C-alpha cells in the first residue's frame, strides 16, 4: 500500500461517523455568576471595539463631575439613556515620545496597539482586538469580525501586523451572506450531521502545509515571516474545521432574519447612520449565534469625511476651518458631527443592552472599548484623548462612571480590557505609553 504511506495527511478515518472535538472550558468563558444559557451552556465573554473620528469639543464634552452620576454636557447629552452602561475616560494621555505627531494617526494607533508609530505607513505591533482574539476567539467560526459604517473597505483599525490588516465588512448584504450564508450552522437546528468534506479539508491542510515549507528556502526574513503567518492562519483554519464537526450549543437568542437590502456608497451623516445601524444589528446577531466573540465596529475614519446636508465642509475640513463660537464654546458644525457620532455610540450600546441573552443581555457579557484619533482635532491635539467603555464583562466591571486620568497613560484602559479578557499581561504599551497600572476604579 505505497499510496497509504504517502497519505501522511490522513489522521484517521471518518467512515461517516460523527466527529466531536472537545473544547477546553476556560474560566474566561464563564460570567461572574457562572450563569448559563437555558441550554446549560455557559455564556461566553466578548470583547468589542467601537471608533469615531476627530475627538471632541472639550468644553461641551467633558463632564464637570467625576465618579458616578456625572453630568452630561451638550455634546454627549444623547448618551443619557445608556449612561448607566458606560464609563467615560477623560484626561488620559497618549505619548509620542521620539516619534512624530502624525495627524489623525498617532492617536488611534497608540490606543489600539500601545505603540507610537514612526511614519504614517507604519502600524507597529498588533491591535488589541487581535491580541484578545488569540485568547478568546478560538472557539467560534470567526476569530473576530470587523464592520464599518463608512462603506469603505479600507477603513479598519484591526491588524495583525503593519501589512496584515483585517479588512472590514462594508456592505450589509455582503456581511449578511458571510455570516448566515451557506456555511452557517444554525445552533438551534434540530439535527446535526457532520459534513464528511470538512474532515477531508482538515486532512488536506496538513499536506498543503508540509509541501509549502520548502518555499521558505531563499527567502528574506520579512518574506519568511509572511509565510509563517500564512501557516499560522492555516492552523487556525484547521481549528475552525474542528468546530464544524462539532454540534454547536443551542443559542436561544440566535434568530436569523432575512437578508438586508444594500445601501449606496456615500458619507452623508444620515446614510452613515443607517449603515451603522444595519451593520450593528448584523454584528449583534453574529454574537448571539456565537459566530464570534471579538468584534470591531467602525463608525467613522480618522479623517472622517462624513457630510452634513446643506453644509459645504465634510467633518475633517470643518474641524480645521470652522471658527470656535465663544457663546456655544465649540465649532458648531464640527460639534454637530461629533453629536451624530455620539448618538450612534448610544445606539450601539443600547442595542447590546436590549439584546436579551440568558437572564441578562449581550452587553452584560461584553466589554466594549471605544476610541478616537484626536482630542481637539482643530489643532491635531492628542493630549487628553477621550475614551469610553461599555458593559460589565460578566459582572467584573462597574459602569456609569466618569474617570479623570490625571494625565496618566491612556493605555491603562487597553491593559485593563486585556486582563479582563484573560490575557496574562504584566504591562502594555511601549516607552511612555507602557503601563502596568489597571484602571482599578472600574473593577468590581
Amino acid at each position, binding site marked *: 500500500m505505497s499510496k497509504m504511506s504517502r*497519505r501522511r495527511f490522513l489522521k484517521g478515518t471518518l467512515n461517516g461517523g460523527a466527529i466531536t472535538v472537545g473544547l477546553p472550558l476556560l474560566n474566561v468563558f464563564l460570567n461572574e455568576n457562572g450563569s448559563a444559557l437555558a441550554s446549560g451552556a455557559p455564556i461566553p465573554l466578548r470583547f468589542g471595539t467601537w471608533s469615531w473620528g476627530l475627538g471632541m469639543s472639550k468644553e461641551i464634552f467633558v463632564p464637570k463631575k467625576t465618579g458616578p452620576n456625572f453630568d452630561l454636557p451638550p455634546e454627549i447629552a444623547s448618551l443619557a439613556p445608556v449612561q448607566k452602561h458606560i464609563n467615560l475616560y477623560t484626561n488620559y494621555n497618549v505619548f509620542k515620545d521620539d516619534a512624530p505627531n502624525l495627524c489623525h494617526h498617532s492617536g488611534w494607533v497608540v490606543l489600539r496597539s500601545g505603540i507610537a508609530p514612526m511614519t*504614517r505607513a507604519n502600524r507597529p505591533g498588533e491591535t488589541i482586538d487581535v491580541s484578545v482574539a488569540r485568547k478568546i476567539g478560538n472557539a467560534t467560526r470567526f476569530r473576530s469580525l470587523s464592520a464599518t459604517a463608512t*462603506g469603505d473597505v479600507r477603513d479598519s483599525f484591526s491588524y495583525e501586523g503593519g501589512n496584515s490588516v483585517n*479588512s472590514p465588512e462594508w456592505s450589509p448584504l455582503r456581511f449578511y451572506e458571510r455570516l448566515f450564508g451557506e456555511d452557517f450552522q444554525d445552533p438551534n437546528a434540530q439535527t446535526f450531521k457532520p459534513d464528511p468534506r470538512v474532515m477531508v479539508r482538515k486532512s488536506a491542510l496538513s499536506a498543503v502545509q508540509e509541501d509549502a515549507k520548502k518555499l521558505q528556502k531563499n527567502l*528574506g526574513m520579512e518574506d519568511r515571516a509572511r509565510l509563517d503567518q*500564512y501557516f499560522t*492562519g492555516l492552523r487556525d483554519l484547521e481549528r475552525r474545521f474542528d468546530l464544524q464537526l462539532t454540534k454547536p450549543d443551542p443559542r436561544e437568542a440566535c434568530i436569523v432574519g432575512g437578508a438586508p437590502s444594500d445601501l449606496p456608497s*456615500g458619507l452623508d451623516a444620515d446614510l452613515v447612520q443607517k449603515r451603522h445601524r444595519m451593520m450593528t444589528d448584523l454584528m449583534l446577531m453574529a454574537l448571539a449565534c456565537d459566530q464570534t466573540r471579538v468584534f470591531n465596529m467602525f463608525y467613522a475614519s480618522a479623517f472622517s469625511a462624513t457630510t452634513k446636508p446643506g453644509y459645504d*465642509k465634510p467633518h475633517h475640513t470643518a474641524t480645521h*476651518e470652522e471658527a470656535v463660537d465663544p457663546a456655544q464654546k465649540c465649532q458648531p458644525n464640527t460639534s454637530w458631527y461629533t453629536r451624530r457620532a455620539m448618538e450612534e455610540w448610544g445606539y450601539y450600546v443600547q442595542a447590546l443592552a436590549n439584546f436579551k441573552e440568558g437572564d441578562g443581555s449581550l452587553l452584560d457579557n461584553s466589554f466594549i472599548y471605544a476610541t478616537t484619533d484626536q482630542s481637539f482635532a482643530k489643532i491635531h491635539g492628542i493630549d487628553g484623548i477621550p475614551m469610553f467603555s461599555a458593559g460589565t464583562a460578566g459582572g467584573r466591571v462597574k459602569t456609569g462612571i466618569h474617570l479623570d486620568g490625571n494625565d496618566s497613560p491612556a493605555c491603562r484602559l487597553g491593559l485593563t480590557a486585556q486582563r479582563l479578557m484573560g490575557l496574562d499581561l504584566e504591562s502594555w504599551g511601549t516607552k511612555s505609553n507602557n503601563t502596568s497600572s489597571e484602571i482599578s476604579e472600574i473593577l468590581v
Partner: protein
Amino acid sequence: MFTPINSTLRALLPEPKLLKAAAFSLAALSLFAGCQPEVVEIENNASVARTRLLTGEQYANTIAQAFGEDISESILPPMPLMARTDGLLASGAAFAGVTSDQISQIQLSAASVASQVVDEEHRDFLLPCKPESETSVDPVCAGQFLAEAGELLYRRPLTESRLAELVDIADYAAQQTENFYDGLALALEAILLSPEVVFVVDQYEPDPYNPGSQRLDSYSLASRLSFFLWNAPPDPALLAAAKNGDLHSEEGLEKAVNRLLGSPRLEAGMRAFFDDMLAFDDFNSLAKDPLVYPMVTGATLADAREQTLRTIIDHLLTQDADYRDLFVTKKTFMSMPLAPVYGIPASDGWVPYEFPAESPRMGLLTHVSFLAANSHSVRSSPTLRGKALRELMLCQNVPEPPPDVDFLGLEEDENAKTARERLNVHNKNPSCAGCHLITDPMGLSLENFDGAGRFRETENGAILDIAGELDGVFYDDISGLATAMRNHPKLSSCLVNRLYAYGTGGPVSLRDDRDILKEFENRFVEAQYKLPALLKDLATSTAFSAIRTQEPENKEAELASTDNPTTPEQIDTIVQNTLASTESEQ
C-alpha cells in the same frame, strides 16, 4: 496505480476560455519592430526577488484563465487590500501578509470555485476525462485534471510527488463522499489554498552565462512577464516557452514578449496598471453629495473612471502616441451619464469625442475622473488636486501637514468667495506655505471645474483667477497648465519608475535602480515616448530577469525612491520666492 500525466494527455485539455480571444497578432507585432534596446553595461543591472501576494484582480484573472470567467465572476476575490506603497497598490503586494480571517475567506472562495468546476454545468468541458464510475475513485482521471489545473494555478508544473499527494487527497475524498467529483473538488480546494498559489514567489538560480550572478528561473520569469503585461498568470503557451528554456535566450524572450504585447490582453494589463497608478481605487467608495451635485450618480463616477482608462488605452496602445500628449489631447470618449457633467448632448453608449478647440478641456487633468476624485464630496479642493498631480503623475512626495499648526488664520472668512481667497491664508503663513505652495498654484488653476468636474467661470459670483505656476513655468489658463504638465521633466521618468516597479513587483530603490531607470528613460525618450516600446524595453531587459540577492536594508529605506522636490531647503526657497512675489504684487 497512479500514472503521471504526459504531454499527450495535456493536449486533450480544452484551451482556457480567455486564450481563445488572445489571438497572436502579427500586425501588432510589427509595431514593436526596431525597438530592441541596445545593450548597455550598467552597475546593479538586476532587480529584487519578491514574494508578492496576488491582488484581487490577479486572483480573479487566475480563476478566469483556468476555469472561465463565469466561475471567476461568481465569487468576490478573497484577497486583502494592499497598502499603497511608493505610489502603487501593486508594490504593496510585496509586503502584504494574510491574516487568519483572510485565509478563512480564501478557503470559502476555493470551495466555491472547486464545486463549480466539477458541477454538471462545467465538468464536461473543464475536465479532460470522465471517471469510470461517478461514485468511486479514478486516480488516472483525477491525475490528468490535477496536473493540468495545478500547472495553471501554481504557474509551473507539479512535481511528481506533489501530484501524487493531490491524487491521494482526491481518492480519499472520493471514498469518504462516495463521489468522484466531490473528491476532485476537495483536492482542487487544497491547491487553491496553497501559499504557492496565493503568493507569487520569485525563484531564482545561478545564471550560467554570468557566473556569480543570479537570474529568475524560467517559470518565475514567465510569471513576472505575464503579470506585468496582462495582470494575469502565464497561459499555457508561455508556460511551454518557460519549459523549453526559451525565455532564457534573447530570441526566445523577444518572441514571447512580442506575443504578450501583441495580444488583446495587453489592454487589460495596462488598464490595471493605469488604474493603480492613478489611484482609481478611490472610485470604489467615491460619492458626491446629491444636494450639491444632483447630476452625479454612481454611474457617472464609474463612467468617469472608464472614460480616462479608455482615453489612455486608445492614445497609448491603439494610436501608439506620445505619452506626454495625454495631458493635452482633446480626444476622449463620452457616455450618456457623463454628458451632462461635461455640458454636451448625450449619446447612446460609448462614443469617441473630441472637445472643441475653444473648450477649456484638454488632457487628463481636465477629465471628470481627476477633478472629482480629488475633491471633497461637497466642494472642489485645489490642494487635493495639486497633491494628486504631483504624487500620482510626477512621482513627487508632498509632505505631511505639520502636527502643531495654528489653524486660527484658517477659520472661515465670511467674505471669502473663492478657494484662492480661502487658501491665501496658507501662503502668508510659512508653516503652511511649505506644503501649500507645492500643491495649490496648480490646483487653483483647475478651479474652473467644481467638485464634480463641471465647468464654471465664477464661484459665489466672483470671477475665478486661474493663473498659476508649475515648477518655474508660469501660465494664465488651463491650457497653460496642461502644456506645462506635458513638458514637465519628471513626467516621463515617473511613468518609467512606476512601470518598472509594477513589472518587477516592488518599489524601486533610489540607491540601486537609479542608473538603470535613467537608462530606460533615455530609451523611452529616444522611442518618442511610446508606451509599447517602453514595455518591450523593460520586459526584455537584463534587469527584469536578473536578480540581486542582497536583502533590502528595510522597507522604509528601500522606499527612498520618489523624486521628492521638497527638501527643507527647497521648501524654504519656494516659500521665500512666493512670499516675495506676493508682497511685490500688493
